[in-house]
């Protein structure tokens, strides 16, 4: 007899498989909407909530062609202030308009006492903070009435007072909130270099069954840190992490993040092709293995 599935895990079973996606960015919007290499799109909701003109027109075109999900930057889920109900109302209206199958934001705080800093800032990794974030994530998911995913951020320092590793904190939050994971494999890689840990140990500590969406991207270097800029090609160790994760979870969507330093669009499409091949070969292998496994099980239970 298996363990009882949580409400989120039940809803994950019902989510559509979206395939390979790209972020809808103003600078490359026309190529993005023309391309036949893209199965779905992700938008930054703050750039579309209560905004008309070009943004609304772009969104209407995108919505006519693709499934869209949102990936917010200013929910500020880790902030100690009360949740911003105006923000949630505007977000919900957008989610309903695009009929998003799920939505996501970052495991961080971006504001303090209604002052947005426009940077994804790390939280103190404490039991108390995990409880606080989980409670808010649960409420946000209920209010928006669709699965909510939290993404691991790239961060550049451990906040003093932290009591646990990031993976344990992340796991604690999503399990208590009963929400999903948007796993950014580039962020895992960037953090592992900046903060000196083994990315595979990190991944082993996460409840990967909760992964619904995966982000993959490139990054940049400063003298002291790798920076998650989404402004460069994906490097091999990040592809390796993607492969590792794909083999261990049933993701519904994988997305290439490219937000600046845009190359010729054909280069973006080439990266999308590579990701698609990885996903399709991994998932066809997994399907074949599942069929094989179920045959063995059937053979074992077959009457003698």
């Amino acid at each position: 007899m298996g363990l009882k599935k949580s409400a989120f895990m039940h809803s994950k079973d019902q989510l559509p498989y979206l395939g390979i996606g790209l972020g809808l960015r103003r600078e490359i919007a026309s190529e993005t909407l023309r391309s036949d290499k893209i199965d779905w799109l992700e938008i930054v909701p703050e750039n579309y909530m209560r905004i008309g003109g070009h943004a609304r027109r772009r969104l209407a075109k995108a919505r006519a062609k693709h499934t869209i999900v949102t990936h917010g930057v200013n929910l500020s889920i880790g902030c100690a202030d009360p949740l911003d109900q105006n923000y949630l109302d505007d977000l919900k209206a957008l989610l309903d308009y695009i009929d998003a199958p799920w939505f996501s934001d970052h495991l961080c705080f971006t504001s303090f006492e209604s002052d947005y800093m426009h940077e994804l800032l790390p939280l103190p990794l404490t039991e108390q903070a995990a409880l606080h974030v989980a409670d808010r994530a649960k409420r946000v998911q209920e209010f928006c009435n669709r699965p909510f995913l939290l993404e691991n951020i790239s961060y550049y320092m451990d906040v003093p007072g932290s009591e646990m590793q990031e993976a344990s904190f992340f796991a604690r939050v999503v399990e208590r909130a009963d929400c999903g994971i948007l796993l950014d494999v580039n962020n895992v890689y960037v953090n592992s270099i900046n903060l000196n840990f083994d990315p595979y140990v990190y991944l082993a500590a996460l409840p990967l069954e909760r992964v619904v969406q995966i982000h993959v991207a490139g990054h940049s270097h400063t003298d002291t840190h790798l920076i998650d800029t989404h402004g460069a090609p994906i490097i091999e160790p990040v592809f390796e992490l993607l492969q590792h994760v794909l083999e261990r979870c049933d993701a519904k969507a994988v997305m290439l993040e490219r937000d600046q330093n845009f190359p010729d669009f054909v280069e973006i499409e080439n990266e999308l092709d590579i990701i698609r091949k990885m996903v399709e070969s991994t998932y066809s292998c997994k399907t074949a293995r599942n069929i094989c496994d179920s045959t063995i099980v059937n053979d074992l239970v077959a009457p003698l």
Partner: protein
Amino acid sequence: MKNKVMQVDLLKETERQMHQILMHQEARDQYADGEGVFARANVADQAVHDGIELYARLIANGRRSLFASIYPLAETLLGKKFDALIQAFRESNKATHYNFNRQAQGLAQFVEANKNIYATRYPFLSELIEYEWLELQVMEHEGDLPPASHCAKDHHSPEEYAAISVQLNPTLIGVDFDYPIQDLIESIQSGEKLPRRFKKSPCHMVFLRDRDDDQRVVQLGPIARGMIARCRAKTDLTVGELLVQVLQDRELSEHHGSDLENLLSIIDDLSEMQAIFLV
């Protein structure tokens, strides 16, 4: 319950300190010698100090690019002083809206309130900044424009035309400027050296977004401005009612020659520029 409150208080205190350190240079210069979570006594790790410097730089760079993208002419005009202006603005003004661009709202009012510091050389600076802000505002305005219709007066009898409704473009924003703002903008864009003294020359400008989602900025004369004001005051005005109201305005008719032909021609112009829609 008490425990939960204490937990959030601890989180809040950590976030308060991070906010202070990252947003205020003075706090950043002093935090290590203070007594909080980030004090030197509590943070032996150099990585935390490097991290704080990096975050502060990322925030400042992001803010700079944002403000420069919204206020490119002010940046051109001020050069290096532009950075000091936005730093001072942000130190004393919260970014209370979740939308990134709206972080830059209120810069014109800040300059106007501190003109003895920031506008001594360029007394029109707050107006230039306001102009650039309004260009963005109309492009992002939530308002939907009515679909195109063909209500030109040539296609209707005078009675039919008089009964047509006039709708104001919902994105339209009208502003009075003291300085000849468009001349100044042309001078800045063409790299001309600006004169030492600036002569005031009041004008009324309207900013709007058209049906192609392009932005239009137009200077209006007193009669056109009066028509816009009447359309704003009464939303279900007809062409006939608008004409009667303007004709009955003694100041407009006495000083600005509001004969019927002229008024009809102004309505055509306003409709052509999509300040109003005849529906």
